[in-house]
């Protein structure tokens, strides 16, 4: 993935304000995501991570400010243009949001059918290919979502999110509700798919293990804006109280200890400093 000067950012959020009544959630928020990156949004409860993601998805409108996805502003663009954007991204919702009235196959086939460009045989092969990609056995294709376990629902929802070959993937708490074993294999799955296909990922997560093993960059949402934005090591190295609480608690340390080597060293120095002071 070449991040040359000519490369346009996938997401550009500029001067974003979100206000609920009297309560300001985002104040002049800025965020830029470059192609091929895996960016994690972290922040305390009520810091507006999910709201920000919903705004980038165009599900909610910000009070003020602009959001551009693939260089196209979400506000004021022609609906046909917005429809094109929506086909270029995939979203994995927290609970999967599989259509409960449709079997697995139809759930994955739905976005493809909507294009009205492919015949039934092609759609069948494509759905099966996507099931293979997320390691779901083909015999599950005709089951209903209510008959599936949480881990399978997540995988199938991922297959559905990937069916239109998205360039941008949104993950909302990708590992919430999965046991550690499943959550680890789900993270590995996302990682390997991202490495193969090179899509950009933006995710909201509370799970430190997921965060440490997936993210290229971490955006810390606190005090109504993106307080820090950088690699995990860089973010951990700043001594902000929220960051300390979040990453350098007992669970955080355990997760960081499992981080790749270049991460481990600066994290360790910070840990010493913080425990000393």
């Amino acid at each position: 993935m070449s991040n040359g000067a000519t490369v346009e950012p996938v997401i550009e959020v500029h001067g974003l304000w979100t206000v609920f009544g009297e309560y300001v959630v985002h104040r002049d928020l800025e965020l830029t995501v470059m192609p091929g990156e895996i960016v994690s949004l972290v922040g305390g409860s009520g810091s507006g991570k999910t709201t920000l993601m919903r705004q980038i998805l165009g599900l909610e409108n910000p009070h003020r400010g602009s959001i551009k996805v693939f260089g196209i502003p979400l506000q004021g663009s022609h609906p046909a243009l917005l429809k094109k954007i929506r086909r270029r991204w995939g979203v994995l919702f927290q609970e999967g949001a599989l259509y409960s009235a449709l079997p697995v196959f139809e759930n994955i086939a739905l976005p493809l059918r909507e294009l009205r460009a492919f015949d039934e045989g092609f759609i069948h092969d494509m759905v099966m290919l996507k099931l293979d990609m997320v390691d779901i056995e083909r015999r599950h294709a005709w089951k209903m979502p209510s008959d599936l376990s949480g881990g399978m629902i997540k995988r199938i929802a991922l297959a559905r999110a990937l069916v239109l070959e998205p360039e941008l993937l949104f993950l909302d708490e990708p590992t919430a509700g999965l046991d550690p074993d499943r959550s680890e294999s789900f993270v590995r799955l996302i990682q390997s798919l991202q490495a193969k296909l090179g899509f950009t990922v933006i995710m909201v997560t509370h799970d430190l293990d997921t965060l440490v093993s997936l993210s290229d960059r971490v955006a810390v949402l606190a005090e109504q804006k993106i307080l820090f934005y950088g690699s995990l090591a860089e973010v951990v190295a700043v001594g902000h109280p929220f960051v300390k609480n979040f990453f350098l608690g007992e669970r955080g340390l355990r997760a960081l200890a499992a981080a790749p080597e270049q991460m481990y060293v600066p994290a360790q120095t910070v840990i010493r400093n913080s425990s000393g002071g």
Partner: protein
Amino acid sequence: MNERGPKVVRDPELDLRQAGDGTSVHVLSGAWDIRALESRARALKARLDELAGKPASWDLSGVQRLDHVGALLLWRAWGKIRPTALSLRPEHEIFFANLEGHQAVPAVQWRFDALAPIRGVGNIALLLLDHVLDMLRLFGQTLMDSLELLRHPSRGPWREISASIYRSGTEALGITAAVGCLIGVTLSYLSSEQLRSFGADTFIVNILGLGIIRELGPMICAVLVAGRSGSAITAQLGVMRVTEELDALAVMGIPYTVRLILPKVIALAVAVPLLVLWTSAVALIGGAFSAKLQLGMSMTQFILGLPAAVPSINLWLGVGKGVVFGALIALVACHFGLRIQPNTESLGAGTTRSVVTSITVVILADAIFAIIYADVGISLS
């Protein structure tokens, strides 16, 4: 996405060229990804199918972008076998690797089953039996719960009962009055035309009084309540089943039959007879008004004529029907609510079935009433 940058992305193209040694080569170029193929898939597929039959080698090295959609389109044209002579960019290899890994298509076998219709009928019968048994069980449980309630009245779910009466009774006053009034006017209008031709004007009181108090009032009420409250009860219990709220009650040691079902049965058994009285009264007023316009019979004359024309046992019969209909609607609605599966379609289908079944059950019960009380209260004195 692998090839970003200033280079212009071209449309997908497919050419047949002659190589130096006389063999032919299919040369692909441009973008073969979903964005480019979306609008051209059908045309390209036709062309691919046509070309794939001819022996030739394939050159994909000029392809700028490739994804699973493009790869699958080619793969299907190749008959799901990789051509022996294929040149491919290394970074595009991955899309075909995914395809080659899984050749086995699950064998979906549709076997002819001669017994299928019989099995179908049997399944319907079993399902019906299952419904009946389930409803009986629910009825028995409700009876036992009400006995418990009689023994410990202080522990009863009075708040829930009161809320249910308000929701299914008080809030229904408007709609039942409107429908009742219209039915009364219509019935009176149609009957008075006939009666006038026989010169039997005064019998309008008998027809309206008996018809509305004994039959129409309870029926109209039951149908409206089944549509209003029955569907609401089914949907509420259904959603609670889906969101595991019923299980949450159960693990807290709060039986949901006592907390949710019994209050609704009691509330409807109380509210519906009251609604019956109300609807019948409004319908009679509507009828009397229409009689005044059509036959010139004064309202006072109509009302004073009622006790003589309609024995008071009919009023009790109407109220009794109201109690039974109310309890039946609540039981049927709860029964279907508890059977809802955790998906959106089941919720819709369950609610529909609940309303249809409760109206059918009410009409059935009404027929049974008619047979049992055939000799009661219809004497023309």
